[in-house]
């Protein structure tokens, strides 16, 4: 591998995910950007990478890079948007990593922002549905939820797993969110609630799907030699970074129950970091739909094909389990924030490694992985974050 500079996550900032009626796209972003800056006030970003997927259709706004850089007071810097559906956050993080690792940018800020609540009605469903294949899926009225439902039905059919097999993902996510003040849903749910939940798109029930809400999260990436030796928090570096693509339309997938992009990007990121699966202390995975959480665990290698659901059933994914997931509530309970999700995941993983997770702290966390997906696994962006004094 070519020699690259060591990239550190110098600051993180995130705001509560939710329905922010009084906040605009810009004000949400600004709040998160300021929060990240507060971690390292001396570091002025030279580049701003924006993660967003729906501003053009829901806010009528493109050109977020220039807009947010200007409003944040970063005059003249390089700034633009990265988009890959729900993986936008991870992809923008990758861009920040590439910029700093190359040595050409010293300090980069990644800001993920999504404003869902300025529009209401079927136009919002249409905007979200732009994540599927427009000519061959959306024209039939298919939405990302319908895609997930079809995958879930096939999964239950092929594995013979019980209808509540995926309950554990929601249960764990909700439990973790209770102690996260930034989470959208902070109420625990019980197994019984899951079993009795109404169907939203059979076999997906109410607790198998996370609606997309407003949110913003930012991280500051810096070359490690730009930091002073007086760190406020334990230093976390980006050990591995990888983006991989698969196909957009479900019908183009070779195997409906395997996510090759998730597998590929995780393998590459772990390999780059020199970390094995068993060394991960936490995994912020893409649990916007419970079925994808199960498939990710299988595709990445935590479980055999068709057995990812057992990790949920057996408690392996709980905060005291062998592979804690959604440690702050994940997409399911902290909230799915569309293009910003990948930045939330990265920020939360960093907070864990820096022992700033409060009541959500995973004890002894030293290495974490964050992975977000675009569409039904069309894009996967994976980052392995390593606490420097622990590797």
């Amino acid at each position: 591998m070519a020699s690259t500079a060591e990239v550190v996550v110098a600051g993180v900032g995130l705001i509560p995910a939710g329905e922010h009626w009084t906040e605009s796209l810009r004000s949400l972003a600004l709040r998160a950007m300021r929060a990240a800056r507060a971690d390292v006030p001396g570091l002025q970003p030279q580049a701003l990478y924006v993660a967003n997927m729906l501003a053009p259709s829901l806010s009528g706004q493109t050109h977020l890079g220039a807009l947010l850089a200007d409003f944040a007071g970063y005059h003249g810097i390089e700034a633009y948007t990265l988009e890959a559906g729900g993986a936008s956050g991870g992809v923008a993080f990758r861009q920040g990593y590439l910029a700093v690792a190359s040595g050409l940018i010293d300090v980069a800020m990644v800001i993920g922002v999504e404003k869902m609540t300025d529009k209401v009605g079927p136009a919002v469903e249409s905007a979200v549905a732009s994540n599927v294949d427009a000519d061959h899926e959306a024209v039939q009225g298919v939405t990302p939820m319908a895609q997930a439902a079809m995958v879930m039905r096939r999964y239950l059919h092929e594995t013979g797993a019980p209808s509540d097999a995926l309950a554990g993902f929601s249960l764990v996510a909700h439990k973790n969110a209770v102690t996260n003040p930034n989470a959208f849903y902070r109420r625990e749910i019980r197994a019984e609630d899951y079993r009795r939940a109404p169907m939203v798109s059979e076999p997906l029930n109410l607790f198998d799907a996370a609606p997309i809400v407003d949110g913003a999260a930012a991280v500051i990436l810096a070359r490690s030699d730009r930091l002073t030796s007086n760190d406020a928090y334990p230093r976390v570096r980006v050990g591995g970074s990888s983006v991989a693509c698969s196909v957009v339309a479900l019908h183009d997938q070779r195997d409906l129950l395997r996510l090759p992009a998730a597998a590929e990007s995780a393998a590459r990121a772990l390999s780059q970091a020199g970390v094995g699966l068993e060394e991960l202390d936490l995994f912020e995975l893409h649990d916007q739909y419970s079925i994808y959480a199960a498939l990710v665990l299988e595709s990445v290698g935590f479980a055999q094909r068709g057995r990812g659901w057992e990790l949920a059933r057996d408690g392996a994914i709980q905060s005291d389990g062998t592979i804690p997931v959604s440690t702050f509530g994940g997409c399911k309970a902290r909230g799915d924030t569309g293009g910003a999700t990948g930045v939330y995941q990265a920020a939360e993983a960093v907070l864990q490694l820096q022992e700033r997770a409060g009541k959500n702290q995973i004890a002894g966390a030293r290495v974490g992985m964050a992975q977000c997906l675009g569409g039904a696994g069309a894009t996967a962006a994976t980052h392995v974050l390593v606490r420097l004094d622990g590797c």
Partner: protein
Amino acid sequence: MEVSRHWRLKQQRYSLVGEVCPHCDSKIFPPRDICPDCGQEASQPYKFSGRGQVYSFTTVHNPPAGHEENAPYTVALVHLDEGPMVTAQLTDVGDKAVEIGMPVEMVTRKLRSDGERGILVYGYKFRPRLLPA
């Protein structure tokens, strides 16, 4: 109003016309000019029989714009007899429950309209086979 976008696709939409790869004989739908199996050029038209089986399905209750009139509707992945998988609505299901493996056949139906004044978009859907096998 989207006029040319749907017009470009009318062959595949109305009649399930895809492609066959002259190199490896793979049947391709929707047409994409490069064979997904062997990676070579494949633009020879191929008309599918329209017969297939339901591979998976779900019912949509929160439709995107343009599909509200038809809701709730069922969408499915249909495994065509000739090999490719296609995404389509199921229609004319009647009283029988939809099941994975159900034999279906292609029919041409209204997919959506561009509002009261826009064009009608026609395309393929699948229904349970009319005649017993």
